[in-house]
């Protein structure tokens, strides 16, 4: 079976400074794949390239066999991608509820939107309490929850999560990773970037290790967890 997402030897950067230099990876349907790496390794850049916020200078990105390396992010979202960016990027002046509704912008049916809203509120009850507050006044953690919920509102096939755990309290981190597993059980493929290597690899099927814009290790999550190199470099052991 063909991979859901295939990244073939992409190169990209900002203003001529190369960041990603020849990166390839693939994500199969139904998997959870984790990308790990040091700060500045290019994890976020990879994600941005996949979802179309940034176009690679060379290489190909295939979503279900279709080349999406040149299409804008909005088009990719409509094809079933969803990206929850680093730094949340909520609409600061809109309420939590409005933010969530915008997450389902591609959905026209009002009823579907309402159903999904309820699902999200069930997942994150705290958001329900805050649903009329504007996003800018949420605490860091609340904002993160709102961002996840917003990303799920479009009912994507593949969801990409960038540093979900950033700034979350321990019990929430746990909860969020549980949520990821839950999402995945529903049939949504997950590609995630994490600093919490241990936690990420615990839920992932496979993982890639990035270093200065290239994949230096890849394999099943267990392999990586057991690899001395990975443990030394990223888990401080």
């Amino acid at each position, binding site marked *: 079976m063909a991979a859901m997402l295939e990244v073939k030897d992409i190169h990209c950067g900002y203003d001529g400074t190369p960041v990603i230099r020849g990166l390839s990876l693939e994500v199969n349907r139904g998997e959870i794949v984790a990308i790990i790496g040091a700060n500045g390794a290019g994890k976020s850049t990879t994600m941005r390239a996949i979802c179309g*916020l940034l176009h690679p200078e060379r290489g190909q990105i295939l979503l279900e066999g279709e080349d999406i390396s040149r299409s804008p992010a909005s088009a990719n979202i409509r094809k079933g991608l969803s990206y929850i960016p680093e730094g949340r*990027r909520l609409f600061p002046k809109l309420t939590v509820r409005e933010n969530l509704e915008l*997450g389902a912008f591609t959905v026209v049916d009002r009823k579907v939107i309402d159903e999904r809203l309820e699902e999200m509120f069930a997942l994150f009850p705290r958001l329900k309490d805050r649903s009329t507050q504007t996003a800018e006044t949420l605490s860091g953690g609340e904002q993160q929850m709102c961002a996840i919920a917003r990303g799920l509102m479009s009912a994507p096939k593949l969801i990409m999560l960038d540093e979900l755990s950033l700034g979350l309290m321990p019990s929430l981190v746990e909860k969020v990773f549980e949520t990821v597993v839950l999402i995945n059980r529903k049939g949504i493929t997950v590609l995630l970037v994490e600093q919490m290597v241990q936690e990420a690899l615990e839920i992932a099927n496979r993982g890639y290790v990035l270093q200065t814009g290239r994949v230096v290790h890849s394999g099943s999550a267990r392999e990586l967890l057991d690899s001395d190199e990975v443990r030394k470099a990223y888990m401080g052991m």
Partner: protein
Amino acid sequence: MNHFLQVLFDGLLNGLVYALVAAGLSMIWGVMDVINFAHGEFLMVGMYVSYWIGFFLDVDPLFSWIASGAFLFIMGAATYRLIIRNSLGKSAMAPLLATFGLSMVLKNFCMNRFTPNFRLLSGTVLEGKTISVGGAILSVPQLATAAFALVLLACLYWMLKRTRLGWAIQATAMDSEAAELMGIRTENIYLLVFGIGGACVGITGGLMTSYLAVYPEVGSLFSLIAFVVVALGGFGSIPGALLAAIIIGLVESFTGFYVAAVVKYAAVFAVYLAVILIRPKGLFGW
């Protein structure tokens, strides 16, 4: 006190025209945080379009505003594509100065092509018609423009608040990248916003030819007032622009009559400053 009534109506009518001029600017400013410095020149171009159509084809401004609106829609969109998109995000002042350059080009192009002569359409349907309300005399062309202003502003407001497109525009205004991630085609939104901004001012210009002379410098004062209206109203806010424009119109006509005509704009700018210092983001600003 029939002077009072007259002055009041003059102020209101003028204010509505200012609101119409400012609406397009406000949208562009609100959505993209770009000041279109060539806004006044857009108005001037709109007036020329309508003037030439009236002059050669004998079409009344009452109808030719459609053409000038369409023309300016295209011009606005083209300005976005060719100028704004390339200067956006490079430095805060780049789009403003680029459009300043554009304003120089447009003004002097018209100067060069159409001569600096004042051109006034004569024999238009509404020309010289007036109606009298309680002793005050109102000019019908201005009244028509004002009525148009109200309708157009209402449409814009409805579009922004009640339609999916409006939602998309607002989201894009707040964070374009995040909007893109919601599946909103932000590139098209920008294009559209600049087009709509252009169309608004094109329509205004088109209608204004029925009572105002066209010449290459006609836009300068209007654009200055439009800046002030938008800033006073709070950028991106249509009701804000409307209220601010009416305030400006009234200040202008009341100081013009009761104090001295020569200080009326000084008063307008001073009132703007006074308000903005109390409410730094304008009357309806966030």
